[in-house]
């Protein structure tokens, strides 16, 4: 079930070494910095998705000395905008559910992850969507992610269920596999495109 098996991929037009572009400078319309919070049951692979996304461009021989719970990554879009994601992982165990508001406060993006082999985790995902609709910031961009798509032989949550739920709630939907890296970059690129742009006036 790990996320460390295959080699990182180097496709996609992401920029390397740009993590400190804006340092503490004021955000402008070309360089966006956004807080992204990850929600979902423990064991659905939240942090695997992020590690795959962030390490994808690292030299596999370099030792990453960062923690796996906070990571940041900058990507470049076609229109030469860069988006720096500051990714906040949350503990998915039930006993920490009440702490989530501390983490999603001020987040511009929420990525809600479930495991396609676990209907329970899909229910939990819906719980998080409702909670964010009630208590999150009103213009938060939400993405629903069905992870572990490589385990399709054990699938218990039909793709259509995910699509329908996301559509009814105005969310972006995608199925990913952190293990094979399928759709991982697409997930973040799609989110980046959906971010509200600061007006350049």
């Amino acid at each position, binding site marked *: 079930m790990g996320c460390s098996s295959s080699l990182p991929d180097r496709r996609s037009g992401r920029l390397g070494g740009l993590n400190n572009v804006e340092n503490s400078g004021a955000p402008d319309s070309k360089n966006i910095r956004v807080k992204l919070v990850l929600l979902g049951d423990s064991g659905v692979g939240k*942090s695997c998705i992020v590690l795959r996304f962030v390490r994808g461009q690292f030299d596999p021989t370099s030792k990453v000395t960062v923690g796996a719970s906070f990571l940041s990554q900058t990507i470049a879009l076609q229109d030469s905008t860069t988006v720096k994601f500051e990714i906040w992982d949350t503990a998915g165990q039930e006993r920490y559910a009440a702490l989530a508001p501390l983490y999603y406060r001020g987040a511009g993006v929420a990525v809600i992850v479930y495991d396609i082999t676990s209907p329970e985790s899909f229910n939990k995902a819906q719980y998080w969507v409702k909670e964010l609709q009630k208590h999150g910031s009103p213009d938060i961009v939400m993405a629903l992610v069905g992870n572990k798509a490589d385990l399709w032989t054990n699938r218990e949550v039909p793709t259509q269920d995910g699509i329908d739920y996301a559509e009814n709630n105005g969310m972006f939907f995608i199925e990913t596999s952190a293990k094979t890296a399928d759709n991982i970059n697409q997930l973040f690129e799609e989110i980046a495109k959906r971010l509200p742009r600061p007006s350049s006036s």
Partner: protein
Amino acid sequence: METAMASSSSSTPSLSFYDFLDRMRNPASLDLVRSIKSFIVSFSFYSPNPENDGKKVQDFFFTMEAAIKDHPLWSGATIEDIDCAMEGLEKYVMTKLFSRTFASSPEDLKFDREISVKIQLLQTFLRPEHLDIPAVLQNEASWLLAVKELQKINAFKAPREKLLCIMNCCRVINNLLLNASMSENHVLAGADDFLPVLIYVTIKANPPQLHSNLKFVQLYRRQEKLVSEAAYYFTNLVSAKSFIVDLNSKSLSIEEIDFEESMQAARLANKVTQVEPSHQLDIGPSARIHNNQTNLSGNFDYPYMLAEAGELMVGDVERLLSLYKDVVTKYSSLCRAVRHLSTSKGGPAVPHSGGHLEGPHVLVAGSADTSPDLDESSGE
């Protein structure tokens, strides 16, 4: 092990702090010094009001940053230079305003005490399994490093340095998780692993004035610095605190009855240690003879343990009586605790009470920050 990297990173900042002071002593910065001084003085005109005070300080930092950027002394300065100056300013101002802004309300002090007492109780029985920390991650010896970082928090007055203690603690934990993932082949599980360990470490550390420290950093750390990674780890400690405050049997993997009984036993044991012998009494001459060979029970002195009846003086009666009363009080409290424990089937071993690590934590009052004064000989 790579865990030693979270060392004291305070050498460079303090260097730049003296750099800041030097610049402020330059006659050319007299206008800045005046603004700083009048800001600090203006604080004493009003009674403390944390939310308001936080905003006032942040606004002041903001104005000063603009003033420094425009100042001839900093002409041609890089972003880093300005940042250094601002770190110096934060440290200077907050050290001066410390007693006024830190734990300034009785409610804060009360909250601090309540949290600390609750943690003391939890320390007597809480184990990593209660938080479902996987066995491969359990590493009490190395966690001590993280504990130590957190316990340093009251040794500093500047918000930046307090925040650094939190960051260092979190870095140690992260390194340990990373090591485990490499050596034990444990898949890195991000916050699912990190938060439980941080909560456990926080309980082990029982950091002094946890609530007040968090509030102080939140209000007075320069806002542009409490972002990104720093904000994330800070939020995790806030979240650990909040978890501990609301903690009950349902928060842990433990039977409700076991939880209640362990808490109760810890409370009773706590009472035992609170009834301390009155050391203030004048120690009689005969007692002094034996004073150096006592300490049978660790903390407490029972100086007459080896005394012979013939050596006792009339003057010893008062102290003997007081010790006698003390022993009886403790004994009966202990009996109650033991009786309580034996009613629970199998019950845990008698809880050893008091400080888990080094006894009650001594609050180091800003040893690292003796607040230097800005020399005003140049002006007025």
